[in-house]
């Protein structure tokens, strides 16, 4: 089967929605919302098509596409094959999984955005632009293209937070912009050093060039420079992930951005950090990465415990979830630090699983806020009475998050820790405390919302209804599916894992 332009179509199909939206009258609320959701569907269909045709046995390499895009340095450079930047898209197993995750969450978040109260037109146009950026990040095959898409996610997010957020939205938007701007700046330095000195920005070629002795390069890259570049990458993606102490911006975003955007942010954008670390950090600098493994594991344990302890004392449910995200990203780091098959697989599983779980939880936050206009734990309470279904789903989400067997959270945490226990048992034992803390803080928060006495009477609050069913059911379905049948994930990931492990030499 031929797949020319397949990925381009997948990545850029939301553009059609943007163009159509531009011609919609501003006041046609329901039309804009419908179109906004519809515009995310082509990507979803194509992503699922790719996934199933892969499961049906077709080769992912068939999806690759490549065109000459920019040639720096003139004919001389072109003849020597240097400084060419191609427009090249492609996916491996990891990319495929992330693309499917992105497409699913984007569609669901578009549905969740029905709760948005004003200026739907601008909102959905930015939303679709954000989706293009995210899909592009996971399919870009060279660093410059990756960076381009990476920044495309930055700008719509700035506006989405700053315009449609809550009380301190502008501050949150700035904090997002500056932290991520710094992260991207560091990333750009790494990319440009690699590109200028090797003459290529293709990820696969870089992997080969940097790990072969005496490979042809434009200018030499010393071992210490490689280490420096990896540390810079760690900082760049550490802002995104986020790694303690680079996390403060992300708390603000979680609290101030509209819940539908937090679904995207927590579900996908944070994961770009993990994706980048695995794809570039581990992929391009395997030797140096191995040297940093202990550091990563330690950072992971710190993230896990720090997030868990602070989540325990929060009074706002959104803050609980924000710290919970930090804590869960610690597990990704732990898995990466273990640097063996189980660990890395656990890390990637955690990326996907947390993406789904946090999307679910933040969707429910949106549902709650829509009806009660508060997310403070003290003001909520006894919700199980008025909204039994929503409360039930909330509990289900929390269970998945704390790692109840049979749900996706369990698989990922189990594997990440399995990996770490093999390599660093003491550290793993300390980290395991975090798992217990997770159960404590999540149950505390969820129980405070669903049971207990209500501070205020919420008269006539309705339960989950109409369009709200779709995100809840799809997300819970996927969480359980991964929990009971992890092969849906592990099979596509197998090839990627093998490449990575081969690079590390394990």
């Amino acid at each position, binding site marked *: 089967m031929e797949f020319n332009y397949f990925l381009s179509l997948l990545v850029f199909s939301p553009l059609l929605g943007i163009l159509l939206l531009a011609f919609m009258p501003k006041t046609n609320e329901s039309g804009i919302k419908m179109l906004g959701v519809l515009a995310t569907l082509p990507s979803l269909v194509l992503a699922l098509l790719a996934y199933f045709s892969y499961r049906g046995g077709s080769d992912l390499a068939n999806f690759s596409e490549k065109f*000459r*895009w*920019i*040639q*720096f*340095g*003139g*004919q*001389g450079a072109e003849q020597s094959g240097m*400084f060419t930047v191609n427009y090249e898209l492609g996916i491996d197993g990891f990319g495929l999984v992330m693309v499917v995750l992105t497409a699913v969450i984007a569609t669901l978040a578009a549905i969740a955005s029905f709760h948005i109260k004003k200026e739907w037109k601008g909102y959905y146009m930015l939303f679709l632009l954000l989706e293009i950026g995210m899909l592009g990040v996971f399919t870009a095959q060279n660093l*410059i293209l990756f*960076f*381009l898409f990476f*920044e*495309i996610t*930055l*700008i719509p997010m*700035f*506006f989405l937070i*700053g*315009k449609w957020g809550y009380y301190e939205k*502008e501050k949150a938007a*700035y904090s997002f*912009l*500056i932290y991520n*701007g*710094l992260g991207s*700046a*560091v990333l*750009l*330095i790494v990319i*440009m*050093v690699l*590109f*200028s*000195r090797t003459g290529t920005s293709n990820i696969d070629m870089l992997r080969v060039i940097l790990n072969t002795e005496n490979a042809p390069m*434009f*200018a030499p890259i010393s071992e210490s420079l490689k280490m420096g570049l990896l540390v810079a990458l760690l900082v760049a993606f550490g802002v995104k992930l986020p790694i303690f102490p680079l996390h403060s911006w992300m708390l603000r975003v979680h609290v101030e951005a509209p819940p539908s955007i937090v679904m995207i942010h927590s579900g996908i954008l944070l994961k770009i950090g993990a994706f980048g670390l695995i794809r570039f950090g581990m992929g391009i600098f395997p030797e140096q990465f191995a040297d940093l493994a202990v550091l990563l594991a330690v950072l992971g344990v710190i993230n896990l415990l720090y997030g868990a302890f602070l989540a325990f004392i929060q009074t706002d449910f959104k803050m609980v979830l924000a710290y919970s995200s930090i804590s869960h990203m610690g597990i990704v780091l732990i898995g990466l630090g273990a640097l063996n098959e189980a660990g890395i697989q656990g890390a990637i599983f955690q990326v996907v699983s947390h993406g789904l779980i946090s999307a679910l939880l933040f969707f429910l936050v949106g549902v709650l806020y829509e009806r009660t206009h508060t997310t403070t734990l003290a003001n909520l309470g006894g919700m199980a009475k008025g909204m039994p279904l929503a409360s039930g789903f909330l509990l289900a989400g929390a269970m998945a998050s704390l790692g109840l067997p049979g749900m996706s959270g369990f698989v990922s945490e189990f594997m990440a820790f399995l990996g770490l226990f093999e390599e660093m048992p003491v550290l793993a034992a300390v980290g395991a405390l975090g798992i217990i803390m997770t159960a404590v803080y999540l149950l505390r928060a969820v129980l405070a919302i669903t049971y207990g006495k209500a501070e205020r009477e919420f008269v006539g609050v309705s339960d989950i209804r109409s369009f709200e069913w779709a995100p809840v059911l799809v997300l819970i379905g996927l969480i359980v599916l991964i929990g009971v049948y992890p092969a849906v994930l592990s099979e596509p990931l197998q090839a990627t894992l093998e490449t990575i492990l081969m690079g590390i030499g394990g």
Partner: protein
Amino acid sequence: MDLETLLSFDWGTMTPEFIILGFIAILSVADLFMPKHVDRKILGWVGFAGVVLALASLVSLIGTDTTSILYDTFRLDSFAIAFKLILLLGAALVMLLAIDYKHNDGLEDNKGEFFYLFLSAVLGTMFMASSGDLITLFVGLELLSIPSYILAGMRKRNMKSNESAMKYVLNGGISSAITLFGMSYVFGIAGTTNLKGIATVFGGLTDPQHIYILGLAFFMIFVGLSFKLASAPFHMWAPDVYEGAPTPVTAFLGAVSKTAGFVIILRILLSIFGYVPVAQEDGQPIPLLFAMQDYIAFLAGATMIIGNVIALRQRNIKRLFAYSSIAHAGYILVALTAMSFITFDAIWFYLLAYVLMNLGAFAIIQVITMKNGSEDISHFAGLYRRSPLLAVGMGIFILSLAGIPGTAGFIGKLNIFMGALMVDQAHYVLVSIMIATTVVSYFYYFGIMTQMFFRPASSEEKIQLPMGTLVVILVTAVGTILFGIMPNLAIDFLHTNFNQFMDFMR
């Protein structure tokens, strides 16, 4: 010089200059004899036609062999054509802005003069691009400067405009004097003012005394010329002059005059100081220019830091753009510092992008400030509601100025980074400063965004756009995006037609 020699020169190479000169003559005579009540706008359109005609004749000259006439004082090489293209493009756009500019501070009485003074300045820049002799370079420089001084003070009854002109004259005079002083050393040692002749003499210099003096000359010429670039240490004039001058003049100073500054710096530095041997390495002489890299790097770093940091505090939009333009001069100096084989590409492309995005931004600034009679940044509040086209246009220009991918500004920065990082002694510090200050610039650039998109408008009145301004905004916006997404259009054009400026010194 008899008539025969005079006729033997290939005057065709000077066609664009003659066209501009002819239009200056026509405009000044017409202005003199036209009755008072006739709107001088018509002169503006004639002038615009002149610039376009000159541009067309310049395009027809692309591909002609390098020729020099008038005893090597006037050269038409690929460097001259390439940079004159940018100069004339910028001039045409500024002309359109000037036609639509209305102000009641005394400018109305002399609107005719405005146009032909402006053309004279353009003529000066063109001679600078084409000259092969210190004398013509300096005459070109003054031909640019003197009309600029007058133009800055065109709003006769406005205090700030007067102040602006005065400051500009004083600073300009001092800097010209310093430049000339530096040139006098060069002439003293070489015994000729011809650039090629100077290069020949300097190539054979061995006396360390002479080289020491030339180091001094380099220092002076560079400092003197930094006035035109508005880079440190001669940047202080920019904010006051930008603020006081009529907006089209500010746009001209920021875009065209700055481009001319880089043209003359490249001409002088490369063709004179690129030939002074200061030391030997592996039998190859190291030119003075390379030995001075640290000095240029220091000034570039200082310029970027000063521009971007002080811009943070500005409330006046024109002052803000003055500091922003100082910062951009710093970025381009980074390219000049590195001296790799893509330096010319990088500077040319960046200037092209800069002329487009800066003139686009000034077109919008002109509309807004004319409407409100004040230049406070708060007048941008709610622009999105009042005129979505202006807001989106300004958004594009700001993203490009901030170097966000998808715009020409990003590709320009990419080029500069590449040059600075690919040389053996990579300029890591300088690149880090450049990227860090770029992130700092997000603060003030996105401050304008916040005003335009987040803040409510003080009035709901729609904004009407004059025809010429609309054209400027559309052309620059399309160019900014086009060269951002398909930069190869410009880069390939450069390489196919100008062959890397191989004939620069021949």
